[in-house]
């Protein structure tokens, strides 16, 4: 950003603040702004208003001020709790899986580095639905589920429809989002620090704990947030791999908006979901930074 500003200031033809230049800027920004206002700001605002209303006819609502929808959301809060537990567990699993992987790519892969990153990106952008669906065969009674069932001698053993299957799906679907930011921070790390640490007699573990991990922390935080937020709102994975038996907030929102058609109640839950995410992300960032201040100084 700073370099951009500097580059702009030495621009030989300073952009004239003429009417035409201003008009061009406005025209360039108009479509995107329109999209944001009409399809992001307005819808979210309507949802907030609707969450205080009462249902009228199918899908409609009467704009009164009532907190009934919120008290409903808190009374039947099981999906929120399930989602929170699954999201925290999924984020933690992604973190522990991604850390060694990102470390390997950043420090050991050499010239194959960009190939490995491409190989991570490609499945991430490829048919989320299809890749989730694939696990039905792998984990099903003719796959791993049946195999383990035979092994432990329990014909009723199932993986599909359990929280474990959903958790696996979540890690599978969102792991790359954790790897990218960790990889980027590790890649930018000054490798001289690691060598200095080793020269000073620090072991492998001590070096990792005192040098690599603190430097990578911003990447870990970004990655955790990037994974945690979509996990909280996930619908496709619990619907397919959990058979709807693992019932998350996403399942409930789909139920209320597309089947039960009680929109105000669903709207209240959506608002609560956003609030939970805001609070937990803020707390997480605050908590991670709190422990970091002392060490940050010593590293820089």
């Amino acid at each position, binding site marked *: 950003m700073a370099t951009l500003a500097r580059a702009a200031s030495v621009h030989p033809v300073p952009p004239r603040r003429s009417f035409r230049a201003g008009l061009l800027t406005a025209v360039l*920004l108009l479509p995107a702004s329109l999209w944001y206002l009409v399809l992001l700001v307005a819808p979210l605002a309507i949802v907030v208003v609707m969450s205080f209303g009462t249902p009228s006819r199918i899908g409609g609502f009467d704009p009164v001020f009532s907190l009934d929808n919120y008290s409903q959301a808190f009374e039947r809060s099981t999906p929120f709790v399930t989602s929170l537990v699954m999201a925290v567990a999924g984020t933690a699993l992604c973190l522990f899986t991604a850390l060694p992987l990102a*470390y*390997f790519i950043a420090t050991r892969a050499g010239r194959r580095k960009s190939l490995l*990153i491409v190989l991570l990106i490609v499945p991430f952008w*490829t048919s*989320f*639905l299809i890749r989730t669906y694939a696990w039905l065969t792998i984990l099903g009674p003719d796959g791993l589920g049946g195999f383990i069932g035979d092994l432990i001698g329990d014909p009723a053993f199932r993986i599909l429809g359990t929280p474990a299957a959903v958790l696996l799906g979540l890690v599978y679907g969102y792991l790359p989002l954790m790897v990218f930011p960790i990889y980027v921070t590790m890649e930018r790390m000054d490798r001289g620090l690691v060598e200095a640490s080793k020269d000073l007699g620090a072991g492998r573990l001590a070096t990792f704990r005192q040098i690599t991990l603190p430097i990578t922390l911003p990447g870990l935080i970004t990655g955790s947030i990037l994974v945690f937020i*979509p996990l909280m709102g996930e619908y496709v994975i619990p619907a*397919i791999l959990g058979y709807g038996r693992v019932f998350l907030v*996403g399942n409930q929102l789909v139920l209320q908006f597309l089947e039960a058609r009680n929109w105000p109640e669903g709207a209240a839950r959506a608002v609560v979901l956003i609030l939970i995410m805001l609070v937990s992300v803020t707390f997480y960032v605050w908590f991670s930074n709190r422990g970091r201040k002392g060490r940050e100084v010593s590293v820089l």
Partner: protein
Amino acid sequence: MSTTAGVAAKPLTRGGPRRDRFGGLVEGWLRGHTLLIYLFLYIPIVVVVVFSFNATNRRVTDWQGFSLRWYESVLSDTVVQGALLNSLIVATSTAIIATIFGTMAALGLQRAPRWFRTPFEALTFISIIVPEIVIALSTLVFFSSAFDVLNPLLDLRLRLGFQTIIAAHALFNISLVMLLVRARLSGMDRTHVEASYDLFATPWRTFRQITFPQLMPAIVAGGLLSFTFSFDDYVITTFVSGAGSTTLPLYVFGTIRKGVTPATNAVAAVMLLITLSVLLVGQFLVWRNARRAGQRGGQASVAGMIAEQSG
């Protein structure tokens, strides 16, 4: 970047002054872990594709020999054909809209005053970070409220369908294209632009001959990623689709409920094929462009740009 890292990493593997006995073990574990993760990521894709060629009539995993019969039966199914066509219409329109408006926004934002830029960037951030399901349900609420008001007022017959799906998909993708193009803009070498102005080129000509070619990889990447996002999307589409606008993901999701069949695997494999080839074509175009411009592959790849963004 990558060469210096490769060189610097070498002494590490030799263990440094204090030899640690677990060095080999750790190296082996890192290697094994990485390999396992890549298997974990790719085995499901392989499973779908392999079993789509199964000749069996019964269970999917019951291998009865190689056959294309499920592809024949699926591709001649008019419902699948319709869904595929719908998906292509939606994805192409979304990609075009997102690419044009996203690029415009990235260029405009460079020139915009700060009072505008800050809230605009905040909205971009929100549009990307808010879970898809929240975007989906709020868009549905918005459309149906808007139609309730507008239709009787202006005597229109607006309803959910292609236009609502495309509009909803474009929101995320405009932000995506904008971020990619902005990243490219900020990393761009300004000297060519300055030289162009020094040679008395008009702003338009400078843009067409200098800026635009340099932005091309980001624009292409953004367009292709928008296409694949839109082509694969289930959550937003299921909320804002109407009668007659069933896309392929909606069709597949519906058939999954009836269980896994070789036919579903064949449709799934077709979807994989389409998205994978779009991504690979994009990767190839970006690489070729980078080679012509004499850059190294790493940062110029689609992957590199996304990795940069999320970092």
